[in-house]
């Protein structure tokens, strides 16, 4: 690990000012915010991340989970994953988020990891983690070792000729289905970005992962009030029963009017280069009867654009079955 300077931010403007000195807020940033550290410290040990300065933001008052006047929920950037998962409102109103969080990492890691840290969680692509390998995300222009390499865990949706790295987060899949808004404090003041616009597709610049600019500090996320009567759930399929990243996962929010689906949100994890909202699946289901045939049709629509690699072709069918199974489960509740 390279030497760094550790400073403590006492206020949000201090934190913003400190990070704004970095040329980028993306991969290779000179200045990094640190909260739980579970992802950053790991990558610093691997020499994938080598910031000159760490800004400890744990002293900022950004840890609260509170209801908004509009009936939604505000989750502070520093709220720990374990606390969000066990929050009574989250469990009652947004069970998909609680379930997603509890399916990720280990209890120790969830005690450390924060909402905003998880939002910015890095891929687990083995070539990104290994500084000897070519990786366009870690070192732009060096190539992609995963294409034609070990790519069993990697993405089938949203990939490019330059990068096929999966977004590994469970939390973010739930946030995508819940249409979360990411609130950011930057050098030009605060702004709010829908999660659907927060993550960038890799394209030819996979090192650019989000819309964050130098100085940008995620302060909180807000969840809109769920439609009355809507139900939600998270289903995660993986190689081990616990403590493993998803091969495929789904976050479903559904409301039925009698037998017909009157509200539906579908997002997938483990298969996309970013938390993958499937508007195609939603269109296929809206207004339709909640039947297995229609779930299957929606799953087909969701995976229509899939581009499997040499080792991950199984994910196409796995993701479809994950969707059908999960939609069936939520339909039973709705």
């Amino acid at each position, binding site marked *: 690990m390279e030497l*760094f300077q*550790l*400073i403590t931010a006492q206020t949000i403007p201090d934190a913003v000012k400190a990070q704004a000195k970095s040329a980028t807020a993306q991969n290779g940033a000179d200045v990094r915010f640190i909260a739980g550290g579970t992802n950053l410290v790991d990558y610093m040990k691997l020499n994938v991340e080598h910031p000159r300065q760490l800004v400890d933001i744990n002293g900022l008052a950004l840890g609260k989970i509170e209801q908004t006047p509009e009936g939604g929920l505000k989750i502070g950037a520093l709220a720990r994953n374990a606390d969000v998962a066990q929050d009574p409102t989250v469990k009652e109103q947004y069970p998909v988020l609680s379930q997603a969080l509890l399916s990720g990492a280990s209890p120790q890691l969830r005690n450390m990891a924060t909402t905003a840290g998880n939002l910015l969680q890095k891929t687990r692509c083995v070539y990104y983690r290994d500084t000897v390998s070519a990786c366009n995300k870690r070192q732009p222009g060096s190539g992609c070792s995963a294409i034609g390499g070990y790519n069993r865990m990697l993405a089938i949706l949203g990939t490019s000729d330059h990068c096929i790295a999966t977004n590994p987060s469970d939390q973010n899949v739930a946030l995508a289905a819940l249409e979360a808004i990411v609130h950011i404090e930057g050098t030009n003041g605060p702004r709010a970005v829908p999660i659907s616009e927060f993550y960038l597709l890799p394209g030819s610049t996979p090192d650019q992962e989000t819309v964050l600019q130098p100085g940008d500090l995620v302060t909180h996320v807000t969840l809109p009030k769920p439609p009355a009567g809507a139900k939600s759930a998270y289903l995660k399929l993986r190689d081990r029963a616990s403590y493993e990243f998803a091969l495929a996962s789904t976050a479903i929010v559904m409301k039925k009017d009698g037998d017909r689906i009157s509200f539906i949100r579908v997002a997938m994890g483990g298969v996309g280069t970013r938390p993958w909202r499937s508007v195609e699946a939603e269109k296929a289901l809206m207004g339709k009867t909640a039947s297995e045939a229609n779930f299957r049709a929606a799953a087909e629509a969701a995976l229509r654009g899939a581009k499997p690699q040499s080792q991950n072709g199984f994910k196409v069918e796995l993701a479809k079955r994950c969707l059908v199974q999960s939609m069936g489960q939520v339909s039973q509740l709705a």
Partner: protein
Amino acid sequence: MAIDEREKESQTSLGRLTRRSFLSRVGAATAATAISPLAPSPASAETSPTKTAPETIPGTVPITLRVNGQVHAIQVDPRATLLDTLRETLYLTGTKKGCDHGQCGACTVHVNGRRINSCLAFAAMQQNAEITTIEGLGTPENLHPMQSSFVEYDGFQCGYCTSGQIMSAVAMIKEPWGSGDADVMEAMSGNICRCGAYPNIVAAVQAVRRTS
């Protein structure tokens, strides 16, 4: 001051360590050594009282850690994790280093009563926290109930993961989990045991949960 630049010294004294800068520093240090006397002259040794100057290693920073109720004022490299600091600086070697990447749980300690992976926490960021290690749970004469239970149910073979398992188990009892064996397995999934003592670990944890 708005930003507490408490580790500015480390940046100015050692700067950013690259291979080139490291080599140039080693060169400078060697040169400095070459011109300093290797030993104090007999005269100065007689006249000046023996002073044990505080050992400061360039680039280290002073921090205060509260571990098992004791306060320690120490010097650490800013890169030092809580795990390495516990083991190498405070000689609390009960906490083990397994993977060093938050994957195995051998380094589990409690920070403010919650279990964490000490390998992923920088020591310098834990200064206001109450840290508990396996040494703070019980003593050989007066074991913590979870320690006794691991002995009684044979919850280990080689013992390397055991302190992490016990720290995790003690914390999990205070967390919201169901009562079944499957809940224990899920709650303890962040602690890997290469010997595969899992059934006995589950039995040990369940025995304590039944009586607490």
